[in-house]
């Protein structure tokens, strides 16, 4: 059956995009890394264009829109983090924008970098390191160690297991959602390449991608808030 071949092609194809000679062998650069570079370039250029020529008085419509957007995003993330952890807003906003753009990069015909499990694993590891670092920073090493036996000593194994479960679930949730959306979109394109994929693309590429980006940063900020309390 050719559907199986199609799935094989999506899921099992060689992800290496650029082969650099390195020592005796090759150093592979994955397609997700190359798409991430493209996304970085797009975001940087968009930022340079949007923030060009800002003034204090007589602001242009573009500046007003950008400022409203920045204030809105920072307020949304700041509310999620709470007052004590407000210093982590910038990191969370950065991750939110990166994830939002990369989840929607399927619209431009790229393979979303978040479809590579290595990317989501790296982001989840960054999140958990930040969470624990925030805990150590705010409570001190002793307080951080003490937080493992709260509220009771009995739950200590659960709290230690959470160190591994939190990043695993963050990583798998994002990866599974994006790969599921991409597989369904490829199947739909296979069934009828004309008109049919459009409404589904709006849902799977835009809505689902943005929701997953939001959920990722929401959970990260929830963990940070929990860690600093």
């Amino acid at each position, binding site marked *: 059956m050719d559907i199986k071949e199609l*799935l094989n092609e999506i*899921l099992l194809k060689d992800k290496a995009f650029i082969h650099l000679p390195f020592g005796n062998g090759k150093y592979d650069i994955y397609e997700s890394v190359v798409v991430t570079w493209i996304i970085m370039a797009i975001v940087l250029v968009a930022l340079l264009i949007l923030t060009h020529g800002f003034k204090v008085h007589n602001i242009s419509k573009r500046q007003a829109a950008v400022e409203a957007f920045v204030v809105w995003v920072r307020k949304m993330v700041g509310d999620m983090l709470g007052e004590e952890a407000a210093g982590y807003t910038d990191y969370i906003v950065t991750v939110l924008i990166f994830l939002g753009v990369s989840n929607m990069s399927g619209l431009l015909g790229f393979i979303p970098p978040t479809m590579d499990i290595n990317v989501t694993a790296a982001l989840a590891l960054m999140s958990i390191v930040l969470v624990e670092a925030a805990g150590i920073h705010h409570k001190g090493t002793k307080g951080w160690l003490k937080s493992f036996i709260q509220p009771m000593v009995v739950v200590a194994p659960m709290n230690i297991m959470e160190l591994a479960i939190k990043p695993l679930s963050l990583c798998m949730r994002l*990866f*599974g*959602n994006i*790969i*599921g959306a991409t597989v369904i979109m490829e199947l739909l394109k296979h069934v009828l390449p004309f008109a049919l994929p459009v409404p589904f693309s709006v849902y799977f590429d835009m809505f689902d991608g943005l929701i997953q980006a939001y959920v990722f940063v*929401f959970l990260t900020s929830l963990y940070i808030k929990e860690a600093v309390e």
Partner: protein
Amino acid sequence: MDFTALGAAIAVFTGLGAGLGIGMATSKATDAVARQPEADGKILKLLVLGCALAEATAIYGFVIAIMILFS
């Protein structure tokens, strides 16, 4: 006989729990908004979080089904 596809199908049964969970959460959220329309922002936030957590089980099932089929 090859039972690989059957195993994947059983793994996808996790979607049952996720569907029930999200349905219940949404019905309660609708109730809550009908009772207190001014609290809809907070309720939406909690609903999205709950749905994301409930949905995770379905996603795990899906990932495992793919792992069964393609490895």
